[in-house]
């Protein structure tokens, strides 16, 4: 099929006529969508529909006209990175890291392409012009699941650069799946933060009129421009309706639903603010937050990436610890059951492996797969067995946050005593001493 197209100098986007068993179809030749039948032509008919025509004996294709160009790579905007609506408005920065939030759709192929010009963003989110002037830049284009600690460092650096050059606040757009890991990483890496940083994603792609990106970015812009919260927060839909977003502390947020708009929930904490979309009201819902202040942010991004996050479950194989130790891992976060258990009986017992790790100066941090609630080192005998061996019970810290924090702590010290001390010190709101009743709904 490819050979035939090459021989006839037919390219994707050309207008073609395909004849087959007496029937003839005219339209634009489309690129193949993954996983379709690779031996079919895909044609966009004049009525707008696509259909596949199997390439087999007797099928003929003819080029009728030179093609329209099918958008296949990012359209680079050559205009300035800044857009000023009104001199009196504050200026905020929007940094793109990938994901579908600020992307353009090629309506012929359905492909989604990153487009991060301030102009495009302003067109997409018209209310921005009433909120702030914007500087926009795409600093990377990486899907959520492909983020790494190196990416976090790069983002932290870029955010700090914007803040230290005087922007009122910064929005980081991000894929949603690991948005909460990045939010936690930024919370630890950005020391002495003087202003808000919002990490924002969208659960509905931006080609559709129902995309949540508009409300999320508008609320985030309002939040970073006008709130006095100097923390890294996620700003995403707070309900399934298009009414408000929640600003949730970066170390206390987790994606709790695969697809809903209101997937992001505060865990063991109250949201810091409710940001209303239409009337732009910012309602503080948790007085416990760091306030906006003068000063420069300092990036502290020393990080040890060799940390493993392990989940315990009935009959889990403790040999997984050996695997990681053999591969030079420097720390473990365990997502234990209930209050922080691992199996302790016979060949399934984690106790000997954990003991061995800690003896080798590899810290083991305990969190809970319940997600909500606090772990406890002494309620049950088996918990005491773990605690006795030096397992660090990480209070009400999220497993994901503990994973990021341990990497960050190990970037600073390998001393097991110091590690324990730092892990149990509240550095970026990751530990709450007391839990409000309303924090579990």
């Amino acid at each position: 099929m490819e050979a035939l197209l090459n021989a006839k100098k037919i390219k994707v986007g050309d207008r073609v006529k395909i004849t087959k068993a007496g029937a003839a179809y005219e339209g634009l030749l489309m690129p193949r969508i993954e996983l379709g039948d690779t031996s079919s032509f895909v044609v966009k008919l004049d009525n707008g529909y696509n259909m596949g025509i199997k390439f087999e004996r007797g099928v003929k294709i003819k080029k009728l006209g030179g093609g329209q160009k099918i958008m296949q790579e990012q359209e680079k905007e050559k205009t300035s990175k800044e857009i000023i609506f009104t001199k009196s408005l504050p200026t905020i920065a929007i940094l793109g890291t990938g994901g579908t939030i600020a992307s353009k759709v090629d309506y012929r192929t359905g492909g989604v392409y990153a487009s991060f010009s301030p102009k495009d963003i302003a067109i997409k989110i018209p209310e921005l012009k009433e909120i702030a002037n914007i500087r926009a830049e795409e600093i990377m284009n990486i899907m959520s699941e492909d983020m790494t600690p190196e990416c976090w460092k790069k983002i932290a650096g870029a955010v700090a650069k914007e803040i230290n050059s005087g922007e009122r606040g910064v929005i980081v757009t991000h894929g949603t799946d690991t948005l909460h890991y990045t939010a936690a990483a930024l919370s630890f890496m950005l020391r002495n933060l003087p202003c808000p940083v919002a990490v924002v994603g969208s659960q509905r792609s931006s080609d559709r009129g129902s995309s949540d990106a508009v409300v999320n970015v508008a609320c985030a812009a309002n939040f970073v421009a006008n709130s006095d919260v100097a923390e890294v927060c996620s700003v995403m839909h707070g309900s399934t309706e298009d009414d408000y977003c929640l600003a949730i502390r970066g170390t206390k947020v987790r994606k709790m639903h695969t697809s809903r708009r209101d997937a992001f929930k505060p865990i063991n904490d109250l949201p810091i603010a409710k940001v209303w979309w239409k009337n732009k009201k910012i309602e503080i819902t948790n007085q416990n937050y760091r306030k906006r202040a003068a000063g420069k942010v300092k990036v502290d991004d020393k990080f040890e990436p060799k940390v493993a996050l392990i989940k315990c479950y009935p009959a889990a194989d403790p040999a997984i610890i050996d695997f990681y130790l053999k591969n030079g891992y420097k720390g473990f976060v365990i997502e234990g059951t209930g209050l922080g258990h691992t199996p302790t009986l016979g060949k399934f017992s984690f106790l000997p492996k954990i003991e061995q790790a800690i003896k080798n100066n590899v810290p083991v941090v305990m969190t809970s797969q319940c997600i909500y609630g606090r772990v406890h080192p002494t309620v049950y005998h088996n918990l005491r067995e773990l605690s006795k061996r030096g397992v660090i019970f990480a209070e009400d810290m999220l497993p994901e946050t503990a994973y990021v924090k341990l990497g960050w702590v190990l970037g600073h010290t390998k001393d097991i005593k110091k590690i324990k001390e730092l892990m149990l010190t509240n550095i970026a709101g990751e530990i709450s001493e007391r839990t409000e009743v309303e924090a579990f709904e």
Partner: protein
Amino acid sequence: MPARFLKGLRLKLLSEEVINYKKLKLLCGLEIHQQLNTNKKLFCDCSTAMQEREPTAVIKRKLHPVASELGAVDVAAQYEFLRDRTFNYQIFKNEVCLVELDEEPPHPLNQEALEVALQIAMMLNCEIPNEIHIMRKTVIDGSNTGGFQRTTIVGLNGRMKYKDREIAITSISLEEDAAAIVKDENGNITYRLNRLGIPLVEIGTGLLENFSPEEVQDIAFNIGMLCRSTGKVKRGIGTIRQDVNISVRGGKRVEIKGVQELGLLARVVELEVKRQLSLPKVVEETRTVNEDGTTKYTRPLPGSARMYPETDIQPIVVQKEFLGKLKKNLPELWTKKLVRLQKNYKLSEDLANQMIRSDYLELFEKIVGKTRAPASIVASTFISTLKDLEKRERVDASKLTDAHYADLFVNVAKGKIVKEAIPKIIKFLSEKPHATATAAIKYLDLETLSAVELKKIIDDILKTPGLTYEKSVGIVMSKVRGRVEAEVVMREVKRMLKK
């Protein structure tokens, strides 16, 4: 239902003057939307029953302008349009889930719906794509929570015989129905989400040239009947909707949307022709139909819809073996069925014509096959008895189940009751649907009298001296009505008087 069809067929031309449509070069195009009666929706596992009356919740949403090849101007216009619009979506138990709420990606395409749609495409002699691609058609009136409707082509370039001509079927698509509008209060628009996602087949004809408005209506009827012969389409108001494009004298095209009553179509076409003739200049526009067949302006004719691939669902390869199997099991064409009804069941042409349009067609065939009750009695029960009872005695026949009818006609077949007893039994069952027909017969004392019993009654009456034949029959009938057929009474009275 039959009444709705007939009303239209009987419609007379509105004016005395006869319009010469041929001379006017009347051009029409039909687009018929028929809901499919599958268990589940097209892209999720919700019920398509639409039985729920009270919403369990209402969700408020907004739609936003979408990026466009047309650039900033178009987006600005959309922004103006959408700015003051809020959409309230009603949620119904079992009939709405996260998919309709645009909170979960679509499930795989409903296989049952695809099969019915492909059957219809084959019956209309369409070319079937080798590979089916689901598309998103941008819709920003709020009737789709996502801002687009999912649709796919299942057939192209088909044709259908009509009288001695051939009607071109341009395309057939399978798509999700939109949410139904409940009310619009200054841009605060409420939709019922239970209709969203019900499988819908859209059938578009080529240009219909040289047909009268009645013929255009009849063509729509033929297409509707063809869909119905699959046995898998929904029935009742709102389940079939037709759009019609009309132009005269090679002039501008006007699209009339949402004709829900087929019987109104001829009148809509005729009134639109008159409207166009009365204008100095016809403007291309979309109009919606009113109850009386007149229309009102809705908006300028939209440009071609923006469509792009639904990337959440992979293209579906239509295997030859699969198509072959469907082709083997194509339902009987309704025109053939009509002939068969007359032949096999010895129904009159008129009764067969009514039966084929009836909601009870399937039940009729099932009952006659199973109970061996006389077909003409079963047919006239479904066609005229029920209608009479509904009209004259306000009987709610919808209370009766298939089992009621089966039981009723078993009794007819066995000679336990005569046909005169049927209305009384149906009326009784509509009021006490928990009873069986057999129990109703006992309770109402409607069992057929034996010859001996009848003879005894007649004997008693004839003892009175001086009775004429007519008078005797009258008295006997008053005693045995519904338990003996009138002809039998007359025959017996005559015979016994002669003695």
